């Protein structure tokens, strides 16, 4: 019996499964074959359709994995043996040695010492690495690794070298490390091994490998990535010049019987995304060669439309030859719409290579004793397995392991697999951290300052001794010293000792980034008995020594300033505790369709009291009307009966003919009142209210042909001997208002094939054939093979305008034949859209927003597809957007896993950055409430006000909005603390300094990245970190200018990347006000700037610092002082 789960594969699916499991209290062994976790997602530049920076949104999850006590990460690991059974597997994992210990400080000094230069696999061979390396900058675990097969210290190259060992300061390179065998006992296994990319050189007619400017999409992705081999410049590998004409070729290796028959699902969208990025890079001439544009997801069709509007040319054609010639790369193609044969020369050609099963999957499957399907991916069970269970009980598959998938579908399935895995565990231990605080911090501050050399990373540039000497003179500093590696085991132990010995009650570590190393020093404080929130860091490496290498004296001065700022903040820190809110361990599921049933079953199975509310008198939703489920033809009746049986067996409480009348509360504590008067307290809510079939607005004469919708056809099941049947897609979908309805193509084709097999004459009218689901492309092929005719219409016009039904046929213009065709038809079957339901008062009360199409809006389209923006509320199935049964089921399971993570813990823990209102000062003007992006401040004008900690996320937008001094404060980022940092930063030569406010998630991370990439910029900047740019208030801006700052920069996430639900739109609004105010006062408007800088834009951060520096250099000290004096008496808020 076990409380543990083995997750194989450390890509985004494995990471998500691990996090969900760990949060629900399981112990997780995450086994990854490469040296780092993160998978393919880490190598991507941006994600579609949101254009999020990929690593920026993935990295927080990676560090969460590393820090979670319930997760053991085994990198360089391979599962070699599995025995036992569900609930009690015994697993052997072989771990190859890394040759670098966990003491590694990521200083990187070993790298220049290594004489071996190799291709970096992470950059798909376009960049270089050494034999000792870290695959990418934000890699987790961040310990370096020795590629022993290419190292000189080992056969076959044996030539004792040891240069890295000598270069390593903390002596953490150990060539005596041996392979290790881990014997694990786990209750369940999740396979999340992902996909591999097709080798394009296998298609000789596309000439990949014969010309450097014929790239794979992944290679272009690395070129686009600002930390990639070309630093984000799109250049031709052949001569490093900028390309002007670029062609994208889709389906390279997929949808091709010579290689892989399946559709890779993601290529259409990532190619459109890349095309848009190229347009942004100023490349005007971009062409996408496609066969069908499979823009099936939420917002995908919109993005396709945007690309078309931006001038991206879409050509429906699969080129026959791609041939390098003297002047470029010639593409020969037949434009299938115009019927013209063309040959065009491009500067660069990008091949969208198929997502294929990784070679080692075969071996792993045999080790695990599970079956693979014909397509080479893991076979999953449909009935009784919800498309997640493999052929062996207790083993589940998610993400690319069971077929190509995009990121949201992968993380959804990962959570779904977690929900299943949890059912095999005997005990759950939600992670609870208890620290005993022995040190009373209430007295006079006693600050200890620790300045790190980081080998030569800091000390090679900054005069560390000088910083220590100056620190000793700072207020309340009772101890200051320098350390070689503060973060090493020895370093942190020493800090602990000093806290005890010198009775320190505040700690300042001047070293690297609080984002990467904050937790390390917080734990050291906690171990010494000091409240961990009394730590402050000065980032004198990433923001200083790494980026000002040529100016050691300025860098030293800056280090002193940064340390002084940290000390000033530290003495104003107060001990705070993570918040604990109790959780009601019950769940409410609204909607009894397949999604609701699945979610409720999963939660009830995990032992949570689960209430399922369905407004109809019967369960099943839309599934009741289906006969078979495409593409594999699962018997829908049997499937539903089985699902209802499982629900009942699991013991969920079912409320039929009932709706939720009222609901209020916050995560962990909701109270719902049902229409029958029942009151239920629950900790989490799942909305699974489905959609409704679209009512076609289409004119046709009665009589021949008979017209019915696809659902009517499924219900009728009988066609009265009709000979000619015509299916018509996209009725009510893919128009101005609505995107793709996802289910229709495969469903039409499923039925078309069936009717065709009976000998009838079947035609299908489509815009594109979107058979993206697993086995669906194969179904399409089979249908064509059997003689189903596919008629293709203009994708840009609504289907309703392109067909006319009557006189015994369907008339339509086929764009491929360029001819109008009358298809003899006895029965016309319309594949109608799924429309959103009208209103759901429960959703309104829970503040769950809707998207532009009227479906419920998810937290994040990529990484939070099942979470609503309101914490503790989850979305499942069609309620969030059109889906087929498989997708609804996996989303429901994922929602259940997320809910379980909340419910399994007796209380919720959260960062203590929750605003506190001083009732004596507050005027209850409600301005703060109006800017809160989470509705976490409640009250009535002039009457009462309160913060709901359960809803608050800690951005601080409210505090910045308040204009009553001291009425609202936020611990950790108080006005007093930030003002003290401003004063310290500007204590000397303020006119020559650039004060920078940076948000924790994007811009500060971007600044860190500039350091990692060693992008040099002038040392005039002083950065103050806040959680969100919305925390920056007018008071701070005015104070900075009054103190004579040369320039002030406010930086934050790009609006769509904001981590606080668009809180930074407040920043933009306020910035405009400040700018007007300053201008009115006669301050040079250039001196205040707002910049969006993402976590990947280290280069942009450095550029902005350089520009601001140049501006400050141009201004005279007198000018600045004169302008500062004009600001006297300006209201602070």
């Amino acid at each position, binding site marked *: 019996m076990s409380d543990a789960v083995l997750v194989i594969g450390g890509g985004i699916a494995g990471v998500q499964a691990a996090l969900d499991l760990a949060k629900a209290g399981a112990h997780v062994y995450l086994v990854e074959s490469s040296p780092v976790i993160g998978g393919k997602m880490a190598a991507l530049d941006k994600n579609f359709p949101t254009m999020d920076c990929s690593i920026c949104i993935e990295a927080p999850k990676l560090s969460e994995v590393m820090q979670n006590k319930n997760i053991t990460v085994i990198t360089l690991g391979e599962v070699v043996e599995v025995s036992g059974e569900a609930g009690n597997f015994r697993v052997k994992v072989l771990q190859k040695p890394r040759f670098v210990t966990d003491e590694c400080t990521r200083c990187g000094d070993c790298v220049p010492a290594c004489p071996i230069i190799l291709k970096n696999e992470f950059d798909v061979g376009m960049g270089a690495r050494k034999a000792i390396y870290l695959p990418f900058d934000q890699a987790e675990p961040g310990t370096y690794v020795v590629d022993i097969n290419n190292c000189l210290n080992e056969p076959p190259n044996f030539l004792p070298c040891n240069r890295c060992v000598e270069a390593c300061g903390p002596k953490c390179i150990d060539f005596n490390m041996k392979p290790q065998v881990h014997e694990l006992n786990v209750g369940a296994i999740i396979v999340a091994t992902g996909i591999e990319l097709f080798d394009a050189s296998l298609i000789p007619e596309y000439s990949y490998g014969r010309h450097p400017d014929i790239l794979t999409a992944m290679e272009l992705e690395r070129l686009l990535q600002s930390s990639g081999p070309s630093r984000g410049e799109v250049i031709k590998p052949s001569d490093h010049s900028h390309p002007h004409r670029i062609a994208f070729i889709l389906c390279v290796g997929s949808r091709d019987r010579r290689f892989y028959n399946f559709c890779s699902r993601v290529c259409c969208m990532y190619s459109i995304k890349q095309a848009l990025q190229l347009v942004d890079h100023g490349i005007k001439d971009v062409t996408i060669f496609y066969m069908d544009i499979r823009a099936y997801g939420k917002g995908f069709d919109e993005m396709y439309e945007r690309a078309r509007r931006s001038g991206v040319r879409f050509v429906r054609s699969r080129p*026959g*030859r791609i041939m390098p010639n003297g002047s470029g790369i010639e593409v020969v193609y*037949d434009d*299938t719409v115009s019927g013209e044969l063309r040959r065009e020369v491009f500067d660069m050609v990008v091949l969208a290579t198929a997502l294929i099963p990784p070679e080692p999957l075969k071996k792993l499957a045999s080790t695990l004793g599970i079956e693979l399907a014909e397509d080479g991916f893991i076979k999953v069970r449909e009935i009784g397995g919800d498309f997640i269970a493999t052929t062996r009980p207790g083993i589940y598959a998610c993400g690319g392991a069971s077929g190509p998938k995009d990121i949201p579908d992968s993380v959804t399935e990962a959570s779904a697999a977690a929900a299943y895995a949890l059912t095999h565990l005997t005990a759950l231990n939600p992670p609870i951290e208890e620290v005993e605080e022995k040190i009373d911090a209430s007295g006079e501050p006693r600050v200890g300052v620790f300045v790190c050399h980081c080998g030569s990373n800091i000390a090679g540039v900054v005069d560390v001794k000088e910083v220590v000497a100056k620190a000793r003179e700072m207020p309340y500093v009772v101890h200051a010293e320098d350390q070689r590696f503060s973060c090493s085991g020895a370093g942190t132990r020493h800090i602990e000792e000093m806290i005890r010995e010198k009775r320190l009650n505040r700690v300042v570590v001047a070293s690297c980034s609080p984002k990467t190393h904050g937790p390390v020093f917080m734990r050291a404080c906690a171990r010494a008995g000091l409240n961990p929130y009394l730590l402050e860091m000065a980032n004198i490496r990433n923001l200083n020594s790494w980026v000002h290498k040529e100016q050691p004296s300025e860098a030293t001065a800056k280090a002193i300033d940064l340390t002084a700022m940290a000390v000033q903040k530290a003495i104003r820190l107060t001990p705070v505790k993570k918040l604990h809110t109790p959780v009601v361990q019950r769940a409410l599921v609204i909607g009894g369709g397949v999604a609701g049933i699945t979610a409720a079953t999963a939660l009830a199975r995990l032992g949570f009291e689960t209430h399922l509310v369905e407004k109809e008198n019967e369960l099943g939703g839309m599934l009741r009307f289906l006969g078979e489920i495409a593409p594999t033809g699962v018997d829908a009746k049997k499937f539903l009966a089985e699902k209802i049986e499982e629900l009942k067996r699991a013991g969920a409480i079912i409320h039929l003919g009932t709706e939720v009348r009222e609901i209020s509360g916050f995560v962990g504590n909701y109270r719902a009142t049902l229409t029958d008067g029942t009151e239920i307290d629950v900790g989490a809510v799942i909305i699974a209210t489905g959609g409704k079939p679209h009512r076609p607005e289409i004119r046709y004469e009665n009589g021949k042909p008979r017209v019915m919708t696809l659902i009517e056809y499924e219900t009728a099941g009988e066609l009265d001997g009709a000979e000619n049947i015509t299916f018509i897609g996209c009725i009510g979908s893919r128009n101005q208002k609505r995107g793709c309805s996802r289910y229709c193509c495969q469903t039409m084709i499923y039925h078309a094939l069936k009717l065709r097999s009976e000998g009838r004459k079947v035609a299908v009218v489509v815009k594109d054939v979107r058979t993206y689901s697993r086995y669906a492309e194969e179904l399409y092929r089979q249908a064509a093979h059997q003689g189903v*005719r596919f008629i293709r219409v203009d994708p840009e016009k609504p289907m309703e305008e392109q067909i*006319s039904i009557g006189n015994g046929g369907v008339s339509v213009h086929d764009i491929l034949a360029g*001819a109008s065709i009358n298809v003899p038809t006895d029965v016309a079957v319309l594949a109608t859209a799924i429309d959103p339901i009208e209103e759901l008062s429960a959703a309104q009360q829970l503040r769950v927003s809707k998207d532009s199409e009227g479906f419920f809006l998810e937290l994040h389209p990529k990484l939070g597809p099942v979470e609503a923006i309101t914490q503790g509320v989850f979305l499942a199935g069609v309620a969030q957007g059109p889906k087929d049964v498989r997708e609804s089921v996996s989303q429901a399971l994922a929602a259940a896993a997320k809910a379980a993570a909340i419910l399994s813990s007796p209380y919720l823990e959260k960062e203590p950055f929750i605003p506190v209102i001083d009732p004596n000062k507050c005027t209850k003007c409600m301005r703060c409430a109006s800017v809160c992006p989470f509705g976490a401040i409640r009250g009535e004008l002039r009457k009462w006000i309160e913060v709901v900690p359960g809803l608050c996320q800690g951005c601080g937008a409210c505090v910045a909005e308040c204009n009553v001094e001291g009425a609202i404060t936020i611990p950790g980022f108080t006005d007093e603390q930030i003002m003290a940092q401003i004063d310290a930063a500007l204590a000397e030569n303020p006119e020559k300094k650039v004060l920078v406010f940076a948000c924790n998630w994007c811009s500060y991370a971007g600044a860190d990245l500039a350091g990692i990439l060693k992008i040099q910029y002038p040392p005039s900047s002083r950065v103050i970190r806040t959680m969100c740019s919305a925390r920056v208030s007018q008071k701070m801006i005015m104070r900075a200018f009054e103190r004579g700052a040369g320039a002030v920069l406010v930086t934050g996430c790009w609006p769509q990347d904001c981590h606080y639900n668009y809180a930074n739109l407040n920043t933009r609004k306020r910035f405009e006000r400040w700018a007007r105010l300053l201008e009115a006062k006669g301050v040079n408007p250039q001196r205040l700037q707002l910049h969006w800088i993402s976590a990947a834009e280290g280069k942009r951060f450095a550029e902005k610092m350089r520009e601001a520096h140049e501006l400050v250099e141009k201004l005279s000290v007198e000018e600045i002082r004169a302008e500062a004096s004009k600001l006297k008496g300006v209201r602070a808020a």
Partner: protein
Amino acid sequence: MTGVQQARLVWDAVDDPAVAEAISLCFQCGACTASCPLNIFNGSRLNPRQALRRMQLGLPADADPYLCMMCAACEAVCPRGVRITDVMHWLRRRLYQQNQAPQRLVQALWSVYEEGNPWGYPAKDRGKWLLGIDAPTLRQKADILLYVGCISSYDVRLQRAARALASLLSKAGVEFAVLGERERCCGDAVFNAGEMDFLEELIQENINAFKEKGASTVITISPHCYRMMRFTYPKYGADFTVMHYTEYLAQLVDNNRLRINGDANMSITYHDPCYLGRYARVYEEPRRLLESMRGARLEEMQLARDLALCCGGGGGRIMMETKPEERPSNMRVKQAAETGAEILATSCPYCIINFEDSVKLQRMQLKVMDVAEILNSMAEGR
């Protein structure tokens, strides 16, 4: 939908179920049209994709199937595996029935009927290639039958290659028979016209002739005969083994029966004949033979194997007039010269004719040779 001429979708316009299936399978990507040598090197001439689309809807194909060289370059890249050459042949069959086959092919058909070869050479001269042959193992009857084929029997240039092959067989000690004057066209010329009844008659006759010679294995010189015998004859009851001579010689070399000893010291590029390569996937054997020669350096053209460019002679095009400037062979010999090779080797008589013409036309230095010719000069006698 008004004002536009509207056709009614016709379901059963194609009478051959296998062909109907091939048509239906197409998903209209256009890779075929964009890989057809007629289009790549001569501007737009033939659009198989469009023809397939029109046939899917039961409309007239609007394509001249007799332009097609049956080289199957389209099939090599087709992601759906559509048998496009079968569709082209079906169209030819139909046009033939409607008396719309090109005059030259009809004439060839009559020549086969009357003289046993499409060129109209006298049947009685068919054995003349044997004059001056050095093949001591040639027998009246034998297990192995060397089927020479029409053009190699009559064309003075190609007779040399045929004699070289016969000599190689003897050097390896292989006892073999030939049909001599009794040899008749394999049927390729008849098939290309789209005539099927006479084809059957001819094939039956040939099968009987092979039997009378006691042959269990037939070796062909031309890949065109090879394809006919390997893929079409079995439908008419043939049960003998067919091998292309390169396959057979490769076996002999592998078994050490044929010893290649001379010093070649030359650079060669090998052209894959369509009917041998794409149809039968014989890619390795000819290369292995050439590489077995000491000192031979094999240079590959960029378009090789599946991508090899047709010489222009397939599908009966060898009989028909193609303007000198539009011959794909012009391009192919240039590609061969680009490799820097002195010799363009191939293993198909049609390719040799076309390449030699193009070399002359373009005043090039390249030497065009049959694999058997090259080998024979290096092979050791017994």
